[in-house]
């Protein structure tokens, strides 16, 4: 498989705290990668650097061979790298469907479609790039995929926690991402629901053809869904291997999993 995302020698410090220390990771296309580590280990910093929210002090990030390190988040999103958030970032005064339509409007506009002088009824007829269907149909399609169809007219502010998480991830899908970074997609979800939600998310995301990196604290979820694990500790990657190997690494057991070797 070809490498789609390549982080080389990333370093980031916040004053005396080092959040990334010579982080190297080559992510292969169509893979599912789990990012593990204790709080403050550098997982979210890694995601923030890839998505342009933070700029590394040193090092580069390449996406399909192009250096994206200096780009702002919106340009990285336009290239096909999207993210969800640990705390869902929604448009809380709008309905679930309107949340999706805002995103689809941005996609249409970034593609040069749906401008002020557009003669078409853009929302009903203009095909959304990547989906080939009008925005309203894409929204319904994604809501159905994420099990959100019943909530389409509900205000985002009053949604239950798990549903907010799903909507946050569904919002990332409107741009048809090629790389998707999920920051703790099952946090705040009950232990019983975790596997079901993760399965639904991965089914939906993979069906749209995205490479996935997800941050997760539950090692059972990681071993079941990740093909590869990056274990972070103190800003460094201490293991980079398939789950069966990485989760049994003595250093990972000591610093991440919480069991001694």
């Amino acid at each position: 498989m070809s490498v789609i995302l390549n982080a080389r020698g990333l370093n980031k410090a916040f004053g005396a705290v080092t959040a990334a220390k010579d982080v190297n990771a080559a992510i292969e296309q169509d893979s599912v990668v789990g990012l593990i580590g204790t709080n403050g280990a550098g997982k979210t910093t890694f995601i923030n650097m890839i998505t342009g929210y933070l700029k590394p002090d040193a090092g580069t990030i390449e996406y399909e061979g192009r250096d994206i390190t200096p780009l702002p988040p919106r340009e990285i999103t336009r290239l096909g790298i999207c993210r969800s958030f640990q705390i869902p970032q929604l448009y809380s005064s709008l309905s679930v469907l309107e949340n999706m339509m805002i995103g689809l409007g941005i996609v249409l506009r970034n593609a040069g479609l749906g401008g002020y002088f557009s003669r078409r009824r853009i929302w009903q007829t203009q095909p959304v790039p990547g989906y080939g269907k009008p925005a309203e149909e894409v929204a319904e399609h994604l809501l159905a995929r994420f099990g959100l169809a019943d909530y389409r007219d509900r205000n985002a502010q009053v949604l239950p926690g798990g549903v907010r998480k799903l909507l946050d991830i569904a919002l990332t899908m409107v741009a048809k991402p090629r790389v998707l970074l999920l920051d703790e997609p099952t946090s705040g979800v009950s232990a019983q629901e975790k596997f079901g939600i993760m399965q639904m998310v991965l089914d939906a995301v993979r069906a749209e053809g995205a490479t996935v990196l997800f941050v997760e604290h539950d090692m059972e979820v990681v071993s079941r869904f990740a093909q590869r694990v990056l274990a972070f500790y103190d800003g460094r990657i201490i293991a980079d291997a398939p789950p069966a190997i990485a989760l049994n690494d003595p250093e990972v057991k000591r610093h991440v999993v919480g069991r001694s070797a």
Partner: protein
Amino acid sequence: MIRDRTPLLIGAILLALLIGGPWLPQWAMFIVTIAFAKGLVALGLMLLLRAGLVSFGQALYYCLGAYAAGALGRFLGIGDVFVQMLAGAAAAGLSAFVLGFLLAKYRGIFFGLLSLALSMILYGLLVKNEALGSTDGFNILPSTLFGIRPGPAWVRYAVLASAAVVAFGLALAVHRYLQTPLGRLAPAIKDNEIRVEYMGASARRAVHVKYVIAALLAGVGGALAATTVGHIDPEMSFWTTSGEFIFITILAGTRSVLAPFAGALLYGAIHTTAYDLSPNTWQMSLGISLLLIIVFLPEGLWSLFKSRVRHP
């Protein structure tokens, strides 16, 4: 799908005004024309308010539009209503485009106070400028329409008709803008800018565009007010004038592009009646009206028509 009735409503009101206008008394024509001028400024404020931004200094562009219109007559001898409105829009739009690079970075109270500061800078410059009449301002040339000067009995109607056509044309344009992806972005910017950026849009650029549109509308409104009143002075950029526009916007609500005009008309009616009944305490009557609106109609006057008209 509910049909969008706003264009039809705009067309009907415009037609009624054009046909029935000549039968209105002169004072009513004046009040309605001023309502169009102030309604245009409030329409721009509505655009900003939908994105969560309150400008305490929109009088800056109202005044710039008025002075651009006045300068046309004073220095070039041009009194054509449409040319004045174009000049007002151009002066306000260009200034907002430049100032927008600064303003679009700020939100909340900083955006509000910075806009207020800019309008007060213009006020300060105008009161010191003798070529523009200093604190007294100056008179505007009598209005003409495509080179024709209407007879004294028809001037007010000619300006009213021009104002109605331009204001409703701009209201329709804004109505359509609100249905575009960029127009629909306003509540998203208000709710969550982080998500807007992570979906691939620039919130700052969207705010900049809205700021320029709001200024264009205010510039046209200013030019219209100048030609209607026949006189301009620096008070047009004073902070109390900006407050008046915010009053109208809150009175109107943000639900329809027609609301700012209804709000401006109601404001004019309250102001005129209150002043007539009690010249020394008219501000108190305005304050009480605003209080009642905020308490009983927090979404503005237009929420009374909520179920009848569809809005973007």
